[in-house]
C-alpha cells in the first residue's frame, strides 16, 4: 500500500529524495548560467573571473549560512547586511587607528557579531517582537553604530603587503609564482560542512528545525523554545562576523553605513537554495548553491555588457521567482 501521499516517480526515487529536488534544480540552474555566461563572455571562463566570483561568494556564503538558521526557525535576520560592515569597521578601526594587534581586531569583530546576535535573539524570543521588525531596528542601529565608532571614516584592513596583512591571505593565498589560490573557498566549505552537521546531527540543530516546523508541538515536547531560537540568531551574528572578515579581506576599504541591501542577496540566496520562508526546512548546501547563483549573477552580468541597472531588475525578478516556487512548494506540502 503506497504510504506516500504525493510525488511522482521522479521525486520518489531515493537518491533524488536524499539530495532534495530543489537542490537539483538549483544545480541545473547554476550550470546553465555558467554555460550561458561562459559562451556570452569569453573572459568569464578565465581562472581570474572564477577568483572574482569567489571574492564575492565568501562573505555572501557566510551571511547565507548564518541567516539560514534564522529562516529555519521561521524568522529572519535583516541586520546581517549593515551588521557585517559595522563589525568590520569596529575591528578594523582598533587595528589600524588604535594600533591593536590584528588578533584583537578579529576577535572583537566576531564578538560584536555574537553580541548583536544575542540581542536579536532575546528581542525576538523574549520581547515577542516580529523577527523582521526587531532585526529591522537592529539593522538601523548597526548602520549608525559602525559610523559613530569610526567617526564616519572608511577603514582599510591591513594590506597584504604589510606584515599584519595576513588576514587577506587567509582568504586568498598568493603563491611565490603570483598565482592566487582561493583559500577562502576552503573555509566556506569547511564552515558549510560543520554547520550542516550541526543543523542535522546535533540536538540544538534538530530543535531549531523543530521550532520552525511546529513551534507549539516543540514546546509541548518539553523543549526550551526561547533558548534555541536565540541560539539561531547568535549563530547568524557569529557568521556575520566571519563575513565581515571575508569582506574586509577581499575589498580594499569599507565605508561606514555601507552594507544595506547585502542582506537581501544573502536571504535571496538561501531561498533560491530551498530554505523555506515559513520555516522548518532548509539546507546549508542549498544556501551555498543559492549564494553561488547570486554571485555568478552579480559578477557575470557586467561581463555581458549589461548596464548596471538592468542587473538590478534581473536579480529582483530572480528573487520573486524563487519566492514563488517556495510558496507553491509550501502549498503542496500543507
Amino acid at each position, binding site marked *: 500500500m503506497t504510504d506516500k501521499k504525493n510525488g511522482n516517480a521522479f521525486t520518489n526515487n531515493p537518491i533524488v529524495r536524499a539530495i532534495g529536488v530543489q537542490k537539483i534544480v538549483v544545480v541545473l540552474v547554476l550550470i546553465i548560467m555558467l554555460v550561458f555566461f561562459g559562451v556570452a563572455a569569453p573572459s568569464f571562463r578565465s581562472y581570474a573571473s572564477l577568483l572574482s566570483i569567489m571574492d564575492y561568494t565568501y562573505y555572501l556564503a557566510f551571511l547565507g549560512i548564518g541567516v539560514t538558521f534564522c529562516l529555519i526557525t521561521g524568522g529572519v535576520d535583516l541586520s546581517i547586511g549593515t551588521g557585517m560592515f559595522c563589525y568590520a569597521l569596529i575591528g578594523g578601526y582598533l587595528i589600524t587607528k588604535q594600533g591593536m594587534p590584528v588578533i584583537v581586531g578579529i576577535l572583537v569583530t566576531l564578538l560584536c557579531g555574537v553580541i548583536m546576535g544575542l540581542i536579536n535573539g532575546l528581542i525576538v524570543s523574549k520581547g515577542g517582537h516580529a523577527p523582521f521588525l526587531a532585526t529591522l531596528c537592529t539593522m538601523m542601529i548597526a548602520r549608525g553604530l559602525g559610523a559613530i565608532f569610526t567617526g564616519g*571614516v572608511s577603514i582599510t584592513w591591513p594590506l597584504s603587503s604589510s606584515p599584519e596583512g595576513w588576514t587577506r591571505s587567509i582568504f586568498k593565498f598568493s603563491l611565490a609564482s603570483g598565482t592566487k589560490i582561493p583559500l577562502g573557498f576552503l573555509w566556506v566549505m569547511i564552515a558549510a560542512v560543520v554547520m550542516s552537521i550541526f543543523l542535522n546531527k546535533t540536538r540544538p540543530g534538530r530543535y531549531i528545525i523543530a521550532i520552525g516546523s511546529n513551534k507549539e508541538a516543540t514546546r509541548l515536547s518539553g523543549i526550551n523554545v526561547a533558548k534555541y531560537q536565540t541560539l539561531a540568531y547568535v549563530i547568524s551574528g557569529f557568521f556575520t562576523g566571519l563575513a565581515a572578515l571575508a569582506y574586509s579581506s577581499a575589498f580594499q576599504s569599507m565605508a561606514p553605513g555601507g552594507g544595506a541591501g547585502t542582506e537581501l542577496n544573502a536571504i535571496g540566496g538561501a531561498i533560491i537554495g530551498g530554505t523555506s520562508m515559513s520555516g522548518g526546512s532548509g539546507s546549508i548546501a542549498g544556501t551555498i548553491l543559492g549564494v553561488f547563483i547570486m554571485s555568478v549573477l552579480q559578477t557575470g552580468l557586467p561581463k555581458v555588457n549589461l548596464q548596471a541597472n538592468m*542587473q538590478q531588475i534581473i536579480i529582483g525578478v530572480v528573487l520573486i521567482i524563487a519566492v514563488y516556487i517556495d510558496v507553491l512548494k509550501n502549498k503542496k506540502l500543507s
Partner: protein
Amino acid sequence: MKKKLLAALLSVAMVATLLAGCGGGGSDTTDTTETTDTTEETTDAAETEETADAGTAAAGDLHLEIVSKGLQHAYWQAVLNGVNSKAEELGVSVNFVGPDSESNIQQQVQQLESALNADPSAIGLAALDTESVMDLLNRAVEAGIPIVGFDSGVPGAPEGAIVANCSTDNLAAGGLAAENVYAAIQATVQAATSPVRVGVVAQDATSESVVNRGVGFITKIAELAEADGKTVGMASVSNERYVTDSGVEVNDDADFIIEVRVPASVTSELSAADASAILEQDDTIAIYGSNEHSANAIITANENLNKCGTGEGQVIAAGFDSGAGIMDAVRSGLFLGAVTQAPVAMGEKLVETLVAAANGEEVSDIDTGCQWYTAENMDDPEIAQNLYE
C-alpha cells in the same frame, strides 16, 4: 497607559544621554567639534560671548561652517587636518560636517540649511549638486553670509553667491592623468594593428568632481590618440553621461576605444565587478579610476587578474587621491602613478579665504592644483604632505 508614558519618557531620556554623553564616539581625530572645543580653550582667555557680526571682529569670534561631501574617504581626513591646523592658528571655531555618503544629496541640503541657520561668519561648501542647493545659495546672499567653494566648488552657482573657490580643477586633473598614462602607452598605441582599449572606472555619473575627472581624462587622451593618427571611439556599453559630456562618438570598432563603467550603486563589490569586466578584455592596455573608491576597485579586481603593472604586456593603471590601498599600489609599481590633489593645502587655504571673506576683504579663486605622483616622487616632502593613510 502608564506603561505607554513610561516608554515615552524612557526613549526621550535615552536620546538625551546618547547625544549629550559621548560627544563623538570613542574616536578622537574625527569629530571636529571635539577638537575645535579644545582649540577654543587654548586660544586667549578673552573669549567674548556676544555673537560676532561680519565686521572686522577679533578672529576669536568668527564661527565658520564647512559642509563637505562626506568624511568617508581618507582625502577628506586630510582636508579636515588642514582646516583644523589653520583654524587653530587663526583661533577661529569651525564646524566641519558632511553627509554619510558622497551620493546623499538630501543630507547635504539639510546640513547646508542647518549651517545657514547657525548664522556663521562664512560658509565653506563642496556641493554634491548645485541645483539642489540653489535656494540656499540665494538665501546666503540675502543674509550676507559669504560662501567659499572648495574641492570641486559649486559650479553654476548664481551670481555673487560664491565669493571665491579654492578647489581643484578636476578637468585639468583628469587631463594630467591622461597625459601620464598616454606617455606610457604611446608606443603600444602607435604600434598597435588591432584596436586597443582604455578603461575608466567611475563611482557615479552624478557628482560634479567624479564626472569632470572622467571627462577630463577622456577628452585629453582622445586628443593625444588622434594626434597619433588613431580613430577614437567610446565603447557602446559606456555610460551616457560620459559620452555626451566628452563629445567623443560611440564607435565600437575604432582603433582607440575608451570604455567607461558606472556601477548600479556605490559599493566595493559592484565597482570591483566593473573593473574586472574591463581588465579582463584582452585589448585593454590601460585603466583609470577617477576617485579613491574606483581606484581601490581596480586594485581589488587586479588581485585576481594580475594584469596591472608597468612591465611589458601589463595594463597601465592610474588612480586618484591616495589612501593606504592606492599608495601601496603606486609604491609597489602596480599603479603607474596617481593624481593627488592638495587636500591639506586646500583645507588651510579654505580657512584663510573664509576668514578673509568674513572680514569683508577681497578674495580670489585659488587653484590648489594637483600633482601626478609615482613611486619615485611620492616621498618628496612637497608631495608626501598631501598623501595620507
